[in-house]
């Protein structure tokens, strides 16, 4: 530690790795470690589900691993285990750093995180044991939800507290997105749970509630966290401020105003009022305006900083991919909300669109953030740059393979379903796509294993620690660029 402090330039007003990082070190490490365990669990469960789709005999006699349980278990492990844990960890670190806060009470955060993980564990086991509600994205038995909400509130309150007590006079665009994510998720979730399970609404209004939640979860939790990361890391890594920063505010507000409504487009053609479906279509199309602005911000910065940086920085590659997938995801939703969407909505294409947000946008951004923040948190460099590269290749290759297969297979499935092709033939024609998706899932799992191994090696392995203590802290960790954090 002393070697690190000596190397700091005394002229630097805010160190790259400073007191704000120290305050959140253990909570962030705890949340990240649990999120990575969930990532592995989710990947394994998802792979089992993927295999079952084309080889139904696989593990067929285990009731708790039947497709209708293992698929939602994978989804929930991924969304609530990996997604919320990792999202909170990154939000915590970013918020503490951007607000320059050294708020006490990190122990409370670990308690909150422990309860969150306990709740998700109960929820996922509950799904496997047959307590699933079968409502997509809300399968966890509703009995565990109050526990989860309290745990989440504790953690989120700390993050907002960090903002209030921080010493930074400015509010950076990343913080706007974090605030929206932190606030929207419990709002959406508590409301949806109340309207579906605690006091169920009647008839197909339930489907509207479920669609509102599912889309909101994707567009108002996963995407904003990813955008916060992108808005922070792109200028950081490239040494350039955000391009057309003055537009970021418009992009933000327009996005927040439309995102809540867009969920209704998931019900195109379903037995719900036509005006509700139309509202979803309008919102999905209106989201293209903020999409354009945000894309100008992100890609303008990226091109301005020089594409050569992409070859240098592993973190930048992850974040750049996330930005690309963000554009793709909103374009897909907009396309699916149009007339032909009625057929596409019930195909693999629609499922793949959600995975683009969950994995392509969110997970890629978080991977980048973890590769960026971990060395600053533990004050050691990643032991093997080659493993970061291997993880990137696996994640990109596996996801693009599975995503393209499911998208093309889904379009074909939708066309054949609406043309009246005999059902057995439709099933047979989707098989190649589902088999390719399994291969993709396998590659993803390999990438996640590499990631987990590397994380453990950096965070907990004594030999890496000893080596790091002897060697000087890498210069990259000590770069100071406070002006970039307040690039407004």
């Amino acid at each position, binding site marked *: 530690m002393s070697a690190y402090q000596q190397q700091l330039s005394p002229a630097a007003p805010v160190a790259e790795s400073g007191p704000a990082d120290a305050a959140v070190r253990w909570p962030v490490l705890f949340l990240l470690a649990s999120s990575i365990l969930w990532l592995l669990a989710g990947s394994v469960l998802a792979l089992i589900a993927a295999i*079952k*789709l084309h080889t*139904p*005999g696989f593990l*067929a*006699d285990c*009731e708790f691993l*039947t*497709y*209708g*349980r293992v698929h*939602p278990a994978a989804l929930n492990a991924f969304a609530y285990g990996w997604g919320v844990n990792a999202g909170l960890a990154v939000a915590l670190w970013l918020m503490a750093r951007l607000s320059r806060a050294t708020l006490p009470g990190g122990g409370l955060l670990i308690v909150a995180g422990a309860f969150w993980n306990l709740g998700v564990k109960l929820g996922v086991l509950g799904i496997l044991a047959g307590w699933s*509600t*079968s409502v*997509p994205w809300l399968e966890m038995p509703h009995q565990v939800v109050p526990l989860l909400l309290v745990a989440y509130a504790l953690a989120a309150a700390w993050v907002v507290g960090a903002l*209030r007590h921080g010493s930074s006079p400015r*509010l950076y665009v990343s913080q706007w997105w974090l*605030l*929206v994510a932190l606030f*929207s998720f419990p709002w959406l979730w508590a409301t949806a749970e109340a*309207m*579906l399970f605690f006091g*169920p*609404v*009647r*008839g*197909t*209004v*339930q489907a*509207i*509630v479920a669609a*509102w939640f599912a889309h*909101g979860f994707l567009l108002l939790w996963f995407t904003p966290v990813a955008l916060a990361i992108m808005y922070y890391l792109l200028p950081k890594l490239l040494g350039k401020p955000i391009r057309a920063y003055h537009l970021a505010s418009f992009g933000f*507000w327009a996005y927040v*105003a439309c995102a*809540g*409504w867009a*969920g209704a487009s998931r*019900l195109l*053609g*379903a*037995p*719900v*009022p*036509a005006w509700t*479906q139309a*509202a979803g279509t309008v919102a999905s199309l209106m989201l293209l305006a903020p999409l354009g602005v945000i894309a100008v911000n992100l890609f303008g910065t990226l091109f301005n900083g020089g594409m050569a940086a992409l070859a240098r920085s592993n973190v930048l590659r992850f974040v750049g991919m996330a930005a690309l997938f963000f554009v793709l995801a909103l374009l897909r939703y907009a396309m699916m909300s149009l*007339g032909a969407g*009625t*057929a596409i909505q*019930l*195909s*693999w294409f*629609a499922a793949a669109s959600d995975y683009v947000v969950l994995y392509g946008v969110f997970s890629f951004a978080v991977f980048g953030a973890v590769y960026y923040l971990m060395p600053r948190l533990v004050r050691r460099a990643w032991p093997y740059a080659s493993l970061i590269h291997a993880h990137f290749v696996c994640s990109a290759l596996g996801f693009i393979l599975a995503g393209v297969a499911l998208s093309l297979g889904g379009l074909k*499935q939708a066309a054949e*379903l*609406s043309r009246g092709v005999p*059902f*057995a033939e439709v*099933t047979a024609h989707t098989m190649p796509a589902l088999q390719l998706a399994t291969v993709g899932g396998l590659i993803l799992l390999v990438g996640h294993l590499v990631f987990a191994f590397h994380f453990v090696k950096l965070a907990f392995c004594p030999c890496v620690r000893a080596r790091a203590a002897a060697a000087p802290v890498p210069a990259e960790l000590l770069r100071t660029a406070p002006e970039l954090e307040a690039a407004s």
Partner: protein
Amino acid sequence: MNRATVIFFGAFFALTLSWAGLLLSNVRSYGVLAPYFDDTENKAYPSQVPGLAARGAQVYADLGCAYCHTQQVRGGEPSADLARKWGGRESYGRDYIREERVLLGDLRVGPDLRNFGVRAPAAAELYLHLYSPTTVVPGSTMPAHRFLFATRQIAGQPSPFALDRAKVAVPAGSEVVPTERAQVLVAYLMGLHDGYDYPEEKQKNTPPKKAGEKKPETHTPEAPKK
């Protein structure tokens, strides 16, 4: 700090607006759809879900059938649901008002089940389908639900529900019988049928009379005037 407050309230307002616009308004209008009482038949539709089927619906949910099977028949141009005989008409919101949990489904890996009761085979065949899908539908990717069945020694008379020995491998002297969960699930599946066409919805969604005739644009009924 002021900015943060603005963002907080802005996000709150935006989300509340979408909640009020999409959910609250639908709860107030569409969510109060009442059963329709047919005077000539002296009966209310949709009819009450029988107890056995209601328990079957819970099995349907806990096994996650809805991840592969939708329960919504769609009319309109790009849909072949009616041609596939998945229903005599498209589904209306009113069809679902008696259901405790509405599982429309959002992916069609398997066929739609909204009117499965109409085309359902005899219970024995349906049990066989659940036990070994490929025996009934070659090429089916539906998972086998053997865990819904018990293999037991035949004591005295064989069970009338036992699976056909010619079609499933059973050790000599044993039989494969559906458990209670399989029975309620089958009761639920065989009861799936939106048979009644409500005058109000029918008027707004007239089915095509002859081939090639274009259907009206509206896919769904509007909320009833109060």
